[in-house]
């Protein structure tokens, strides 16, 4: 038991035994799959097959688009029957013909080829967030990573997919961890696992004693307490490091991966098998054969649950993910995604509807369980009046949406839903204000350009006037009609304009360095404005100097 701990946390009923004791098996091949173009974090992939094409299992059907995105592969062999903005549908031919990539040895392959392989295989985090694995590995390139954490805590009730993965494939998961650790330069690997998975712990211990690993692996068994599987909580618990607010684990030298992702990573490298299937926990009181199954991506939830013996009469709701952070499905006619780790077909008795909300009595139960040490009741209060500044000061954006507060709330207030809505509202507001800022900056640029043109025109006219005067009356004849500009203030203005340009350049450079793959239109236009201002100031100064050459001492 590590000495460090995260605050708060709850002990919901685990309800894992129904599935943890059933053997891992394979779901039948679906007759049709619907593969969503966006089943990972980031941009949707863009289709690279056409309707009517014949595809094989593992053939790429959509390629990643932009920086954060992932490839998509056919999960059954057959014919592409439909393509739209959302998904590609494939009708099976029943042959299950595979198209594998070449096998690589992760011990000898170059980092470049490994990265390329992860990208090619369409790997995304299978724990739930679906962050593309190759991007995560690349992020590691900008930061010094010392520890790879295998997040096997699996703290949500019901879910046993990681448990079964570790029990069935302990060698592969640890090899996958070695692969990723090598890729990101980690010096140690830590497996964080809750003590309610004795068989998985035993399997891991067995592998660790019998096999030598190039990068040191430590097994850390932690107390079963939700949400110990939150990245920030697990890092605190295993390493006593605080991931900064708005930061990522890489900021404290850590990379977290789910066992399922590591297994998929090894399969993609060792066997050349792209991500076309995953392990899903099928559970809940409304199915007769609960357990963990290998499922082809894109299989319909209804088909999968029917296979597990779904009883529609007993069914109250189906939840994708765990009961704490998952989402209820409004229709079963939806496909399994890369991020679907669990399907709960719950009866009304086991996950009853939430009773009607009553007023907050500030009892503080939520506060005592918040793993981020926020004040959920205060967030709730200020959210009622949409006091967004105050919400941000109360660290709304540090909320990890674990649902511990909603779980204990005696007034049944849907706190996490409120926080999500508030975050969304504030994000929209930020975008709006960024837009209006940008419009303002464009306007300022136009003004600056007009001013510069005006100054140049003025300078030309002045020059012409002076020339005319010279040619008709000769030099130094008659009064100087040009307005005697205050050279001193013009010089100051020019210096200020120069400083503004330098500052704008610096800001742009820093922003580009921090986010090289984003556009910085707003900053660029601000720089252009500053440059226009400088040009105008230069022109005016030059003109004033020309008008009164004798007055300016060198």
């Amino acid at each position, binding site marked *: 038991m590590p000495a460090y701990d995260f605050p708060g946390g709850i002990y919901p009923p685990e309800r894992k035994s129904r599935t943890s004791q059933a053997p891992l098996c394979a779901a039948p091949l679906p007759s049709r799959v619907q593969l969503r173009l966006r089943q990972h974090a980031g941009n949707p992939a863009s289709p690279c097959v056409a309707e009517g094409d014949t595809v094989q299992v593992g053939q790429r059907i959509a390629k990643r688009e932009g920086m954060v995105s992932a490839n998509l592969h056919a999960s059954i062999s057959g014919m592409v029957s439909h393509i739209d903005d959302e998904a590609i549908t494939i009708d099976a031919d029943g042959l299950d013909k595979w198209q594998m990539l070449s096998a690589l040895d992760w011990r000898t392959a170059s980092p470049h080829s490994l990265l390329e392989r992860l990208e090619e295989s369409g790997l995304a985090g299978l724990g739930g967030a679906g962050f593309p694995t190759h991007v995560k590995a690349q992020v590691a390139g900008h930061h010094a990573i010392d520890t790879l954490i295998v997040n096997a805590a699996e703290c949500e009730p019901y879910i046993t997919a990681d448990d079964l993965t570790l029990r069935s494939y302990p060698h592969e998961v640890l090899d996958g961890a070695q692969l990723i650790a090598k890729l990101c330069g980690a010096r140690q690997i830590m497996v964080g696992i809750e003590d309610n998975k004795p068989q998985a712990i035993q399997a891991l211990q067995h592998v660790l004693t019998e096999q030598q690993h190039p990068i040191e692996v430590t097994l850390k068994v932690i107390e079963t307490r939700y949400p110990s599987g939150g990245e920030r909580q697990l890092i605190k618990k295993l390493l006593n490091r605080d991931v900064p607010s708005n930061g990522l684990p890489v900021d404290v030298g850590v990379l977290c991966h789910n066992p399922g992702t590591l297994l998929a990573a090894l399969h993609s490298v060792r066997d050349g098998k792209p991500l076309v299937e995953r392990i899903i926990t099928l559970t809940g009181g409304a199915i007769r054969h609960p357990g963990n199954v290998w499922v082809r991506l894109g299989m319909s939830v209804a088909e999968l649950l029917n296979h597990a013996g779904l009883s529609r009469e007993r069914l109250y709701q189906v939840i994708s993910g765990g009961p704490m952070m998952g989402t209820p499905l409004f229709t079963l006619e939806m496909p399994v995604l890369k991020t679907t780790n669990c399907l709960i077909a719950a009866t009304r008795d086991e996950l009853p509807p939430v009773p009607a909300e*009553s007023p907050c009595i500030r009892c503080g139960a939520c506060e005592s369980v918040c793993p981020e040490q926020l004040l959920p009741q205060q967030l709730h209060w200020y959210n009622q009046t949409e006091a967004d500044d105050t919400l941000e000061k109360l660290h709304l954006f540090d909320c990890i949406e674990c649902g511990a507060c909603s779980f204990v709330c005696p007034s049944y207030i849907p706190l996490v839903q409120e926080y999500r809505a508030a975050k969304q509202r504030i994000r929209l507001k930020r975008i709006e204000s960024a837009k209006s800022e940008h419009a303002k900056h464009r306007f300022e640029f136009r003004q600056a350009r007009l001013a510069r043109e005006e100054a140049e025109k003025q300078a030309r006219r002045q020059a012409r006037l002076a020339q005319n005067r010279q040619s008709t009356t000769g030099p130094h004849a008659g009064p100087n009609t040009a307005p005697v500009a205050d050279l001193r203030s013009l010089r100051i203005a020019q210096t200020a304009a120069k400083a503004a340009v330098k500052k704008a350049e610096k800001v742009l450079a820093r922003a580009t360095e921090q986010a090289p793959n984003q556009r910085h239109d707003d900053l660029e236009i601000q720089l252009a404005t500053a440059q226009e201002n400088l040009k105008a100031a230069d022109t005016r100064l030059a003109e004033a100097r020309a008008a009164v050459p004798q007055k300016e001492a060198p």
Partner: protein
Amino acid sequence: MSMMHASPLGAAPSTAHLMRWVIIATLPGLGAMTYYFGLGVVSNVLLAALIALGAEALVLTLRSRPLRPALTDSSALLSGVLLGASLPPASPWWLIGIGVLAAIIVAKQLYGGLGHNPFNPAMVGYALLLVSFPAYMTLWSPPQPLVTETLWSQIIGSLPTAALDGLSGATPLDAFKHKGEAVLASEFWASQPLPEGTLSAWRNIALAWLAGGLLLIAKRIISWHIPVAMLGSITLLAALFYASDPSHFASPLFHLLTGATLFGAFFIATDPVTAATSRRGKLIFGAGIGVLVMIIRSLGGYPDAIAFAVLLMNLCVPLLDIYTVPRPSGQPKPARLPTQGGPQ
């Protein structure tokens, strides 16, 4: 979005359960009070509870709010019970009525009902009665049998004032307060100023409230922070006063075991709606009540001071909430809220 909730699973109480548990926890204290002061305690509590429910229903009807959820959450009932327990036994019905109406209608519903009231409703009612009807509010009789002849006429308010005076005694805190500057504490106690058994009656009642309070902490209905901070600061200050001049100040034990100290610490100050929210805020809130209680008892004009101390600290809660925001993990430094538009 959490689909799992603790209370349907029996893992944590709902608001109504919380309130009912607090009411259950008042039973030892109320029982002890009834044992020593007679059925007048029961009549107080029943009348106050009934009027509280009636007042709540009336205002909810006027506000066109659904009656059922608000009445079944037992929060009005609890306010009534707590106010009834604070009043001198067998208080006349109109006195109870005025106090409860002030508590439920003014202090609670006019601010928006449950969860929105800045001041502890029961203590608003009590403080109003204390400043408006001091004669009735100091009519604590000495320990007496369960049923007295005058009980009924006291409750319906038909007993002449002169007869009332004959019934009343002084609470230990009151007696000590009015012992006079010239009288030393040792002389005061030697003179046996209180009727036989008064001190032990108050002590046993206080211990019964303590038992109820410990039950609440054991059931995790309230957290330990406020009672511990409040009792701690009372003990500390009383010890300081006592050490500085034992002949004029009462001992810490006297302060803890007479008057409403333990009742207030576990049942009044812990009202979550009107207390500070963060753990640090709760500690400051409780300690502040203790300090005010000791200052008013020792230097002010009232023998007991729970109501005033609690109400004054209720006033400080928005400020406490602003300055005691805990630092989330990974946050560089504590943030402060803007000092406007706070809850309550």
